[in-house]
């Protein structure tokens, strides 16, 4: 039953209330509407995903055989540096912010973000940052010391002392810009979530996606500026004669690593928590049951956020300069709230009535793959084992299982789930399933063998390896897997194009979903809602549509742990 009436004249571009139509391009360039800005975040981020993905293909193609075939050492070094930097700062973090931008105001029943103009500014800093980063190719070379850019290497340049070019400076400036974009976004999201919830929506009735966004944005707010200070110090060392990281002039080389990882570790939770929020939205809908252990979930998320600030030096065990037992303990501990979430997710599905639509497939895929990534991380929490596995392909396996198996699967889940909300049409299920299975196969073929390579001693960031190690076969297998991943994007892109061109629409709540974004038209009008249902739990729409059935169903818990009623 429609709460908000679809207005025939309402179109994505133009403001009918003002009585004139704006040119679509101008409309998109100057919009401050969170839905349009959200779409732009999604599109911009996916484009960079493609660019960084192409770089991954180049890397894997070069590594398939020993010897140099296509990319020499310096080109290879630039490739993995740009691949990592782009994926993290121009894809994963912003695409999750894009979902948050579109969905959070809708889920809390607000009409926009707290600061719409700052929202637009946050977005536009991203393509600008991307252009600055990539302009390195025009000035003799991009940054080349890995996305972590450790000094003294990042101060001296990769081809020997005094070889520093403009590339790393462009990297610094781009990241300062992108970081500022994130911080402004954090101010916006936190204010929106605290101040703009609809009447009846207490904090503990917010959808879980909003909670994960809240914790994520608190991490962004507090950690990103620390990275900014490190970037500033690096820029000063490189260009103004500073010596923060130069031991010859009183600086400390390893201090960069401490400041860098103080940010970059919380950053990995920024990269995955909203994805967990997406999975927490999808599983209840396609199990037809509420999220199990809502409050525990909130505390686990907050706990991960807080603990995430105390583990940074586990990236530095091999430096011989950090207090091993403290960081090892905190790292082991962070597995506990993550485990709680897993059991909550499984319990959500347990005794439910599951439907395997494409979003549900990707959500379950997330569970299976992130599990592996979490488990192989526990090995690295143990310093002596880390001495053997650090800086080897085991770490590359771990990070891709959590970031690709985790975040990317969650992103696709969210995309298939909310596409009908953005456009009024569901994506084709057949193509969606093809995409899912191709990606599952390609992804595991590429990254699971990396555990073995790491155990066999292959270090990371090497352009070449010796044939005598018998690493060639595994490398070839991984390259084949990478090509399958590339192929898997074809049914996805075809699906999107096809569906957008379709004239027929689907209903406005095709999944019989629970939360407020589905209580309006698909896509929503500019002001989001004409009116809202009463809010008494975290599933206001579900409560509304299934009131009779819920009354018949006695609550099946022994003791409930949520304030749902």
């Amino acid at each position, binding site marked *: 039953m429609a709460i908000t009436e679809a207005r025939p004249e309402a179109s994505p571009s133009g403001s009918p209330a003002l009585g004139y139509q704006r040119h679509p391009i101008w409309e998109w360039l100057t919009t401050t509407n969170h839905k349009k800005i959200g779409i732009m975040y999604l599109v911009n981020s996916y484009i960079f995903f493609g660019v960084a993905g192409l770089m991954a293909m180049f890397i894997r193609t070069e590594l398939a055989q020993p010897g140099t075939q296509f990319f020499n050492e310096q080109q290879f070094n630039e490739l993995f540096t740009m691949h990592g930097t782009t994926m993290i700062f121009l894809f994963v973090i912003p695409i999750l912010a894009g979902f948050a931008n579109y969905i959070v105001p809708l889920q809390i029943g607000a009409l926009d973000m707290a600061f719409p103009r700052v929202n637009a500014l946050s977005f536009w800093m991203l393509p600008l940052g991307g252009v600055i980063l990539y302009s390195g190719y025009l000035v003799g070379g991009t940054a080349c010391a890995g996305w972590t850019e450790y000094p003294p290497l990042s101060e001296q340049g990769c081809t020997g002392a005094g070889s520093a070019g403009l590339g790393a400076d462009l990297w610094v400036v781009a990241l300062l810009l992108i970081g500022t974009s994130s911080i402004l976004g954090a101010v916006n999201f936190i204010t929106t979530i605290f101040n703009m919830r609809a009447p009846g929506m207490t904090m503990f009735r917010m959808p879980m996606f909003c909670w994960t966004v809240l914790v994520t944005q608190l991490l962004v707010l507090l950690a990103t500026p620390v990275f900014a200070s490190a970037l500033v110090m690096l820029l000063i060392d490189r260009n103004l004669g500073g010596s923060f990281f130069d031991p010859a002039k009183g600086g400390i080389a390893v201090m960069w690593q401490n400041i860098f990882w103080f940010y970059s570790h919380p950053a990995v939770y920024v990269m995955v928590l909203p994805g967990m929020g997406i999975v927490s939205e999808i599983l209840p809908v396609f199990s037809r049951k509420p999220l199990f252990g809502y409050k525990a979930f909130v505390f686990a998320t907050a706990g991960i956020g807080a603990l995430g600030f105390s583990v940074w030096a586990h990236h530095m065990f091999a430096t011989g300069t950090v207090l091993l037992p403290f960081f090892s303990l905190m790292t082991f501990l962070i597995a506990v709230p993550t485990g709680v979430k897993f059991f909550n997710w499984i319990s959500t599905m347990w*005794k439910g009535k599951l439907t395997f639509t494409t979003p549900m497939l990707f959500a379950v895929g997330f569970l299976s793959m992130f599990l592996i990534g979490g488990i192989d991380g526990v090995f690295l929490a143990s310093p002596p084992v880390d001495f053997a596995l650090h800086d080897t392909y085991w770490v590359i396996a771990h990070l891709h299982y959590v970031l690709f198996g985790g975040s990317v699967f969650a992103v696709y889940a969210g995309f298939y789930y909310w596409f009908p909300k953005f456009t009024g049409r569901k994506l084709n299920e057949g193509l969606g399933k093809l995409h899912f299975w191709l990606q599952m196969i390609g992804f595991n073929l590429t990254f699971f063998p990396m555990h073995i390579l790491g155990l066999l001693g292959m270090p990371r960031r090497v352009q070449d390896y010796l044939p005598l190690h018998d690493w060639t076969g595994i490398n070839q297998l991984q390259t084949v897997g990478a090509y399958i991943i590339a192929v898997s994007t074809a049914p996805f892109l075809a699906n999107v194009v096809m569906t957008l061109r379709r004239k027929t629409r689907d209903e406005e709540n095709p999944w019989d979903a629970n939360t407020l974004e589905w209580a309006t038209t698909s896509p929503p009008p500019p002001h989001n809602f004409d009116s809202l249902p009463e809010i008494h739990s975290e599933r206001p729409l579900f409560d509304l549509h299934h009131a009779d059935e819920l009354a018949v169903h006695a609550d099946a818990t022994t003791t409930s742990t949520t304030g749902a009623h």
Partner: protein
Amino acid sequence: MRRWQGKGTGSRLRGVALALGGALLLAGCSGGSFPGATEQAKPVHHLYMILFVVATAIFLLVEGLILWAVLRYRRRDDALPPQFHGNNLLEVGWTLGPFVIVAVLFALSFQVISKVDAEASNPAVTVNVTGFQWQWEFTYAGEKVKVEQGQPPQDLSIKGTTTKPPQIYLPVGETIHFNEQSKDVIHSLYIPEFLFKRDLIPGHTNSFQITISKPGVYHGQCAQFCGLAHGQMHFYIHAVSRPQFDAWLADQKKKAASGCPQDTTPGQIVAKNTAYDKDCLAEPANKPFTLTFDNQDAGVPHNVTIFNGRDAKSGALLQQPPFPGPKIEKYQVRALKPGRYFYHCDVHPNSMTGTLVIQ
């Protein structure tokens, strides 16, 4: 048939589960890790195996629950399932359970850290490792080499080049102490079969000790990205019996003290892959000679600057501007008195060095 009454996905999922389980079983037999060739590596391997067993168990349990839920609870009708929100007992249980598991794993790790990081007070051999872009120099502390009249003896030093990585020998079963320093950027000394690595950080000295338990040749390479030829910074440790080690030491000292037996192509030196093809040149005394320098590195500038003494601080006696390859230049060197003259490339003074021996 309703949309959600799908059939194919269930059996497909079962197939994937079997394949996964099979692969894991195969991996499980060996765990995949090297057994560890040092006394310190043995507890590390043991700890790895414990982690592996726990990891496999957790994986099978959780993945099993996911698969079970996915297969068992498919939607077959329109009625709502029981709408339970939580269960305090279960939730406390699966918070405490993992907490206990990680606490135990931490305690085990803590024990092994103490074994790995322990340092005895009287090691049998002390090796000072210097890392630089892009090779290694291993110096045996206390093993003096008498070089020539009037010069103090130096510690025996084995320096590698990209084309000739260092082959260093160490005695089995004895405590070896390593001190690490870096000349430029951060490197990392990694020996996979020792299950160990430790970074080399400029401005800071790291040290560790190992006792090799099995004779063999162990490959190592740099594991901290350090620039262009990071992937080519190999080295090899030959672990041998004490008599063999002593014999090798004596032989190395003799080679270092004598002239330059490695110079099979006198009067010529080549630069390739940012390395000289030889670290030692031999020429007769009191006679001017021509040194032919072949720079085979396309676009990379090199030269050969010869100094008056044993290092670059002693003033150059021959210094021509560096030039990019591919190109050959002939240096005319004046007559020199007997002695040892240091040479290096001005552009790559750390990695391209050698000694001109005049006898």
